[in-house]
């Protein structure tokens, strides 16, 4: 699965995207975030406060507790601020 980070999540993790094989049981964006937080201090800092984080699954906004199913791409980012 491809995981993307935007805005300050990209800065804290230090990467824009990574390709990962998910362990069994990681079936929601929230569970994925919890697993990613264990990958290093940058990731831990990025996911320290889940109240600040939104996500998209296969390029559609999704709830953090949505089922990942066979998703190919998950993105994590803060609330959007365009316009």
């Amino acid at each position: 699965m491809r995981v993307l980070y935007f805005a300050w999540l990209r800065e804290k993790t230090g990467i824009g995207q990574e390709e990962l094989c998910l362990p069994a049981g990681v079936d929601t964006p929230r569970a994925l975030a919890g697993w990613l937080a264990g990958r290093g201090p940058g990731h831990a800092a990025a996911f320290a406060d889940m109240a600040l984080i939104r996500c998209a699954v296969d390029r559609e906004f999704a709830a953090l507790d949505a089922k990942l199913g066979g998703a190919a791409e998950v993105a994590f980012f803060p609330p959007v601020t365009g316009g």
Partner: protein
Amino acid sequence: MRRISVQEEDFDAGAELARLTGGGAGGVASFIGVVRGEADGRKLAALRLEHYPGMTEAALARLADAALARWALTGVIIIHRVGRLLPAQNIVLVATASAQRAAALAATAYLIDRLKTDAPFWKAEEFADGAVRWVSARPGDEAAAAAWRKDLPPGPDRL
């Protein structure tokens, strides 16, 4: 006429609005967002705009389609810039045309309100003293977008 663009380069608002005349249009309404010169009383050097390539264009196209389905429009244009923008420079253009003014005015307000909550853009403020701060979402933006959803039946407009 439906035109969506996410681009680094500036847009020519006059030329864009000219695309919307004709085709039964009786009026053209538009909104242009520009970079402020200050934030919270501090002088801004620039605004950095980031987006989610691929998802952004799809999200904007969906909003344009929802506006076209809701109002009798003859055209919709959404152009959003990304990259490093200086104070007073253009950020976004939303423009719509319709036979009568009411539809164009309402659709323009709808599009800019919804764009703020439903398209994956992020802004960082670069201050004159060198500090950089990611902009927080404003609760008022979500309320404005939600107001457009409230009185709608289920359909392509619901995200």
